[in-house]
């Protein structure tokens, strides 16, 4: 059958094209174009100017990248976020899988617990940060409970503990969302498999390892990827919880530095270079995670 020119362009079902168009436009306008423009800015001596202002924005090659990579604050921020991810991602997977398995069982107060884990996720960061400041300052509840074991300097002003504390805070805050993902995934693990495992003599722990964990592997891949992407974009917590990445930059994140350089200090070219490096870093991590976590083998 001969295909008309319209069919060749729009395919057998043109209505499908109409359906996807709004999303394609959305992606192009708010993601592809800005990302492309960020790459453009990172290769130019670029700053924001008033409409009509005559400004020179010459091509500078990799100068902005050289500036960024030779800046100890930026290098440290990338190191900090790696520490963050090493703590946050595994903790998120272990806790959310464990808790969702518990919540999936017929336990008392199940609805109450489900809501409890979800509440921090939907609560405004500013409010929750206030509570954590109260909990983790030197005279706070945590140190009162720990007594002589309390660290000095205290958690959020201790250069060794600030980033781990932020990682634990973010794990706790995001946990409700990831529990929800696992709860949905657990509904797809057939009860027959647990029954078969039980008949083979597997206890609860073995059932969990050999049925639940493989059964929710696609969800685990998703959780690992999402936790990595949101973690790499850490901003609110160093901005609010540790007073601008303190102490002495120990909890500064690349996005915080990007904000300082790009917005506060009026160097969006340098900010964009940090952003582009971060995107590349996250893509590499995501590919590695997909290779090692998402593999069916």
């Amino acid at each position, binding site marked *: 059958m001969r295909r008309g020119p319209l069919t060749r362009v729009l395919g057998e079902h043109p209505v499908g094209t109409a359906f996807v168009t709004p999303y394609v436009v959305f992606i192009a306008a708010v993601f592809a174009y800005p990302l492309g423009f960020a790459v453009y800015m990172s290769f130019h001596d670029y700053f924001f100017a008033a409409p009509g202002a005559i400004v020179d924005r010459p091509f500078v090659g990799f100068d902005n990248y050289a500036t960024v990579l030779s800046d100890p604050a930026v290098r440290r921020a990338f190191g900090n976020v790696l520490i963050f991810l090493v703590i946050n991602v595994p903790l998120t997977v272990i806790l959310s899988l464990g808790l969702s398995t518990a919540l999936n069982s017929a336990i008392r107060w199940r609805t109450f617990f489900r809501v409890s884990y979800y509440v921090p996720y939907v609560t405004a960061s500013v409010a929750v940060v206030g509570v954590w400041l109260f909990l983790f*300052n030197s005279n706070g509840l945590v140190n009162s409970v720990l007594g002589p074991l309390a660290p000095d300097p205290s958690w959020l002003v201790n250069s060794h503990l600030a980033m781990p504390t932020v990682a634990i805070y973010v794990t706790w805050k995001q946990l409700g969302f990831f529990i929800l993902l696992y709860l949905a995934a657990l509904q797809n693990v057939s009860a027959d498999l647990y029954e078969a495992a039980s008949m083979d003599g597997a206890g609860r722990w073995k059932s969990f390892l050999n049925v639940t964990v493989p059964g929710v592997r696609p969800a685990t891949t998703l959780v690992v990827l999402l936790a990595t992407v949101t973690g790499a974009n850490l901003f609110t917590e160093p901005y609010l919880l540790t007073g601008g990445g*303190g102490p002495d930059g120990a909890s500064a994140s690349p996005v915080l530095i990007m904000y300082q350089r790009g917005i506060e*200090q009026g160097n969006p070219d340098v900010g*964009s270079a940090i952003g582009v490096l*971060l995107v590349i870093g996250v893509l590499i991590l995501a590919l590695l995670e997909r290779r090692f976590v998402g593999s069916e083998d």
Partner: protein
Amino acid sequence: MKLQAGLLAVVLAGSLAACGGSGGAGDADAAAKARGPITIWYSNNAEEVAWGKQMVASWNAAHADQKVTAQEIPTGKSSEEVIGAAITAGNAPCLIFNTSPASVSQFQKQGGLVPLDSFSDGKSYIEDRSGDIAKQYKSADGKYYQLPWKSNPVMIFYNKKAFAKAGIDTAKPPLTTYDEFLATSRKLVAAKAAKVAIYPAPSNEFYQSWFDFYPLYAAETGGKQLVADGKSTFASDEGKKVATFWRTMYADKLASPEKYTGDAFVDGTAAMAVVGPWAIATYKGKVDWGVVPVPTSSGKPAGEIHTFSDAKNVAMYSSCQNRGTAWDVLKFATSQEQDGMFLQASGQMPLRKDVASVYSDYFTKNPDYKVFADQAARTVEVPNVPNSITIWQTFRDAYSKSVIFGQQDPGAALDGAAQKVDQLVKQS
């Protein structure tokens, strides 16, 4: 903030800039004479809003054909970010009565500001109104891109109740020299009159040094700015004395390196605060306070002590079409009468010469504010140089590392920061 959101914010603002091409600056001469409706923004604290509303109503009543529409500065992480974005988008108002002097060089670089010298009486009006202090607000090209509007001379507030509890004289507390200040602080903490003696914000935002290092540095040096004549000044003996003083405060746990939510002075956590007169309204009915100038190493007499101005100014933005009206409104809003009403409403000091004598009636009725009027004559502004915010962040990083967290010798940290700052000044 998500990365995408961050990139988007950066890029959208950039693309708006790229899309521009006309209608911004326009013909400067014609615009300087153009008259018609204008918009203005003012700060969002209750006292300034009340003053702003009456000022606008008063102007509009007499100028039906040149109506002023006013609103509070839209909310954002900071006013400066909102203003920067508005400049880029070309929708900044004609006047903003809350322009931070530290951001002026950046706004100027963006092509966002109108030099007030472009009005025939611009320079003379500013210098006649503010006197010698006006010169600190000149930009590197010798022009005025801001009108010095009001200052909040930073001083040491103390809680009389806490001082009495520690057995310290509440009328003339010993806070003149560094040694006295440290001894008084130790007494306060030892007597458990407060958890810490003083609580300057220890966080790492670029502007926080305006409320710990800079007022004392201004006092110690007799009024030097952080950068002068194209070079940093702070890695001097005076700068190191100030840094060492604050390091002792932190090392001896007389000040806290931890972030505080709320107002430590109002809550009674700190017995002193380093702040300007704007805060008096918030202390009313909560703290029985007294005020003294910031300390110096040798205990200079009060009449010789300089401090940080914490000024906010008025700037005219290049997107303004009816600049003739905007200039008239600016002069109206900073007239002797309106400045008096502003002082009455907010307790902040209009940046005009001889504020104490011009408004003597006010200071007779409100003696608490008199000391700030005297101090207003000796204020130091942030240096009006390109890369201003990067310079302050560089300084803050070094100060934070050495003075607040004790991870480096303060003197060495200032030396290192001075080298970087000198480079930044050279780049401009």
